[in-house]
């Protein structure tokens, strides 16, 4: 028995020292899963880039349930990983409750917000999704023949309304007579993984005249893109570049450079500057995707129009209203 205890003790001590000596970064994916072809996969790509560039290594974990959030944070912090990078807005409240216990560990919440005055060791990285969505709205309005475009969101949360609001503003700025139909899939997390509902929503919007549909809905969006491709109309992907899912049928994708955010915060290591960082068009944190799959869909005029809009937003000549700033949208009612 004593021998056993000794072994266990040595093992634990070894594990602890090994962890503390490394100070590698760690990455926690949100419930969508590492290979969601979207948000979390972009984070994974960023971490892989970091590993390839610096030759360093990192640890990552896929959460299986809500209960694991805090547990995973504490495990990584106690093992000496620094910084601990997390994706998804749901991680911000577990970080708030954990951060004070590990003052030497830097936490990064991508898409979440933690008050920097209360927790000085947390970096909140936010994206100006409304600006990126504005650009896809400009493209959608130019690509639409019917003057009606659609938006399909996943779970009805302020973040998704921010997408919808920016998109609607882009559409209406380009074509003031256009109609924007907006639908949310549901109010529970199941709304992120219901492609059947996505398809039905898309066909309902198509029958109301929509010929470009922007899906910001995780796995549900797969159904939307499929329905759009089947009905021979255009769709717009989200987060990662989804143009390749249906080549020639996906107009563009609203890119959120989660990979850049992850790579940069990992590269800075333990010296990471904390606070709040906003990644917008100017920082190339958001944008629209242009590749071989949609090159034929984006005409030269569309490209110049959308690039002009981009310049105007960066220069501050055009301000895109942020839904989350006052919970209202001038271009769309929910």
């Amino acid at each position, binding site marked *: 028995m004593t021998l056993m205890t000794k072994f266990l003790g040595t093992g634990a001590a070894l594990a602890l020292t090994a962890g503390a000596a490394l100070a590698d970064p760690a990455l926690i994916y949100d419930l969508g899963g590492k*290979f*969601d*072809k979207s948000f979390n996969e972009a984070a994974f790509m960023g971490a892989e880039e970091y590993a390839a560039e610096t030759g360093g290594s990192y640890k990552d974990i896929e959460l299986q349930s809500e209960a694991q959030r805090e547990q995973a944070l504490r495990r990584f912090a106690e093992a000496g990983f620094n910084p601990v990078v997390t994706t998804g807005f749901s991680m911000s409240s577990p970080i708030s409750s954990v951060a004070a216990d590990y003052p030497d560990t830097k936490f990064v919440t991508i898409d979440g917000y933690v008050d920097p005055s209360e927790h000085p060791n947390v970096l909140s990285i936010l994206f100006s999704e409304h600006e990126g969505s504005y650009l896809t709205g400009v493209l959608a309005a130019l690509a639409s023949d019917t003057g009606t475009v659609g938006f399909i969101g996943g779970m009805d949360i302020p973040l998704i309304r921010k997408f919808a609001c920016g998109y609607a503003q882009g559409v209406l700025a380009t074509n003031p007579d256009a109609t924007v139909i907006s639908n949310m899939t549901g109010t529970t997390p199941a709304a992120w993984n*219901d492609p*059947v509902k996505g*398809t039905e929503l898309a066909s309902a919007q198509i*029958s109301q005249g929509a010929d470009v549909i922007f899906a910001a809905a995780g*796995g549900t969006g797969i159904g939307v893109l*499929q329905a759009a491709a*089947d009905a021979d109309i255009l769709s717009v992907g989200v987060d990662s570049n989804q143009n390749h899912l249906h080549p020639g049928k996906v107009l563009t994708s609203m890119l959120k450079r989660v990979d850049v955010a992850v790579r940069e915060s990992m590269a800075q290591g333990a010296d990471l500057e904390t606070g709040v960082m906003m990644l917008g068009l100017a920082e190339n944190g958001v944008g629209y995707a242009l590749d071989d799959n949609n090159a034929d869909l984006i005409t030269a005029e569309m490209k110049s129009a959308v690039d002009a809009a981009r310049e105007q937003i960066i220069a501050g000549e055009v301000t895109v209203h942020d839904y989350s700033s006052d919970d209202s949208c001038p271009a769309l009612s929910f």
Partner: protein
Amino acid sequence: MDLLTLLQVLDSTVRLATPLLLACLAGLFSERSGVFDIGLEGKMLAAAFASAAVAALTGSVWIGLLAGIGAAVFMSLIHGLASITFRGNQLISGVAINFLASGLTVLIAQDLFGQGGRTPSLIGAGRFEPITLPFAEALSGVPVLGPIYADLISGHSILVYVAFAMVPLSWWVLFRTRFGLRLRAVGDSPEAVDTAGVSVAGLRYGAVLICGLLCGLAGAYLATGLQAGFVREMTAGRGYIALAALIFAKWRPVHALWACLLFGLLQAVALRYQNIHLGGITIPVQVMDALPYILTVIILAGFVGKAIPPRAGGEPYVKER
């Protein structure tokens, strides 16, 4: 609301009601024989995955359908083994089936395709295409009836017609055949059936297998009829809505049809109109989503008729010594 919009909503209703109907009938057979089944969700999910994966690998949706049915029947057999042979708790076994399917599908999909628990998009012969019924084109000019036939009745995938044909077939099997009589008897008083010299376990296994077959059709329809591939957790609670519909229908096939159509209609309306304005009142979309469950609770509470489950339901049969 004009006729075209009405037809589109009803068309959507039919599509949304079909998986519910198949799963509801599956539960009907199982529960009528005295085996409660909350594993409908898991069986559908397993079938959805197996059908999409095999259709993607072989390029044939029919082989995919067989694989889907096979997967659901296999899950059913696990449920049967646990709850009939080993007399385990049927609810716990059902929950286990749900967890098993939820985890296994993603795991195998990731291993096979490496796309994050998703199958590749099915193309061409890998999915069920909508079929146009004869004369749909010719009759579409006829006022009212023409569009109803051409848009609403025609233009669904074959599994939709199979599902609707299952309703009279289930009724006939349950209420007009010897097997059906015994099946209902085994759910109400297995002792009587046993006394008559008929195998209780045999009948219950039969019912559970039919349940697997129907769940297989439902799952395959989701993944290869409505969608072009499998996405994790894509059943999104339809198995539970089907259970609610089963209670709402008071365990009867024709009522099950109406219950599923009603629940499908509620979903279709919720998807088509985000908020419904009736006079001065605005009904938020969430009310529509919650209505199936609210209605089920009302029925269960006995306000509208009384839902009496099969008497021996949920109890494993132990022979008296």
